[in-house]
């Protein structure tokens, strides 16, 4: 029973920890990593949903057609999700570099006061 709920509890915990980090952050790099943490909760959730007891990887080249396998859809979704996350993270880091050069700080609480009004 605990094993059944564990992935869902873990996913919720990871998401909330990422959000906690985002709300309390004092550093943009830290914030971007926290956003990545929150996003990675969806990978855990997807994999938890696709898991089957006694199932193996859904690659039919080396197993028989009647073997029980994990849901092949969720790994495709997870992979797509990872790609989307990577694109966002790269863009955010590039923006952070620009902010650091223009404003000389990456503390989100101090950025506004450094800007010319």
């Amino acid at each position, binding site marked *: 029973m605990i094993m059944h709920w564990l992935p869902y509890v873990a*996913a919720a915990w990871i*998401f909330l920890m990422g*959000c906690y980090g*985002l*709300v*309390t*952050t004092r550093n*943009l790099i830290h*914030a*971007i990593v926290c*956003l990545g943490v*929150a*996003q990675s*909760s*969806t990978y855990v*959730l*997807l994999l938890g*949903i696709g898991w089957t007891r006694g199932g193996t990887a859904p690659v039919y080249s080396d197993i028989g057609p009647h073997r029980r396998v994990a849901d092949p*859809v*969720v790994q495709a*979704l997870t992979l*797509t*999700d990872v790609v*989307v996350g990577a*694109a*966002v993270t790269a*863009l*955010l880091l590039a*923006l*952070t570099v*620009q*902010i650091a050069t*223009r*404003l000389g700080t990456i503390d*989100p*609480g101090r*950025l*506004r006061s*450094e*800007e*010319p009004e």
Partner: protein
Amino acid sequence: MSQLLPLLVVVPLAVAALLAGLGHLLPRPVADAGAIATAAGCAVASGWLAVGTRDQRAAAWIGDWRPRHGESVGIALVADGWSVALVLLTAVVVAAGLVFSWRYLEETSATYHALTLVFLGSVSGFLLAGDLFDAFVWLELSGVAAYALAGMRVEEAESVHAALEFAVVNTLGGSCALVGVTLLYARTGELNLALVGQRLHAHPADPLVALAFALLLVGALVKAAVVPLHFWTADTEAAAPSPVCGLLSGAMVAMGGYAVARWWWVGFDGVLSRHLVEPLLVGLGALTALLGAVLCVQQRHIKRLLAYSTISHSGVALLGVGLLDEHGFGAAAAYLVGHACVKVPLFLASGVLLNRFGSVDAHDLAGRGRGLPATAAVFAFGGLGLAGIPALGLWWGKAALEHTLGVDHLSWLVAVVVAAGALTGGAVLAAAARVFLGRTAAGLMLAPAVVLLALGTAVAVVPWVGGYGADAAAVFTDRRGYVAAVLGGAAAPVRGYEPSPWTVSGLLLAALAVALAVLVAAWSLWGPRIRALVTVGHGLHRIHRAPMPEQVGWLLAGAGVIAVWLAR
């Protein structure tokens, strides 16, 4: 006809890839012409498709991977009157922005054109997606293009900072939507929206389904700039280049409202209780409409003013969607189209001011706009259009919404709609009067603004368009027909009923809103300052300058409220 659907997504993305790869070899006018031609081609194709899908749907399964025995792993694209109409709107807004940028963003490379076309392709993909995960991917892709466009001017610290806030808040909203999609997949074993809807209908709803809907709502409402998920809007649209603001205000915000309606009508109508969802959406819509409108008044920064008014009008549209009936949706969709046809010209005109004077502060510019009669005219018509003056832009959707509210015995909400129009319109008129009259030719850049205003007028007054909107709304809200179109099967044809906006009450309400707008404008120019109101205004404004972590906090608080409300 359904063969055309994938092309609306693929062609802009392919041209974007070409421009991104070969753009540095091409002379700038070639990049401009190619991008504009692509957007215009998409507009023509979606217009042609729209005429064909007026009262029916077109569905395409990519690679012909159709469902077998009620199970599907393929990806479906579905078009009906309103989704295609919004693709058309996006293509027109993108084309207008590109024409404007020809002169406005002379220093940018072809990357700008590539990103704009990625935005167009992914918004089309989102509007046509018949698959929840696909919808999420397009939502994120259009987001990534928009973040990059918003932060395009890397030499402006404010612009880059706003883009970062925009990206963090929207990505978190997107993650919420993805969790919602995942929960639905866990429950139904399907990602195709029609099949998800069918499976959800087979069982009574439980808290998991309600939570999934709440999370999907969070993802959509962040895009729609609805309170309290709207904090990115003002900062981003104040700092981003004007044509990009047009894309955000005209297309991205409309995407949010569309998503709420699509997911409700195909997935959750009849599964979750209307008595729970309707007050939530109508309440959030009304609150957003009023808050945005109040923030508009007293705002000196013209682009920030326009951003607040976008928030307000998006709230009005959500109010219409939240009525959860065919007429409410039709009115909201028409309202969003009309809004784009007014707001995008206003943003482009503010870009002309920025280009000419290097500022969009109405007090700094006092009287300096005298030599720009065409820009002044766009601002004047835009202000009146936001107030809902008959025959211009918002008039069609606004009159239909007021009529529907009357029929639904929610007449008191008409006051919210009128107030939103009067305050936002009045604020624009006041800013325009300050800049263009005061104490005291930008041909190619203004041409798209004027064309869009004219288009908005055409949309509002041509009876065929009204009938089209009503028919398309009837099709949109018909779940059985949607399922039949995607999965095969016969659907009974539906016809919409469109009340004419030219009624006495409609005209009187419009006159009231316009009169109030003029009054608001006059008051903010010459009226006495009421200290309490000014203090409240400054306080609200300061909250909207919150740093990014606080904005995330607001988003989470809003998500919590929505989830708790729906889980009752």
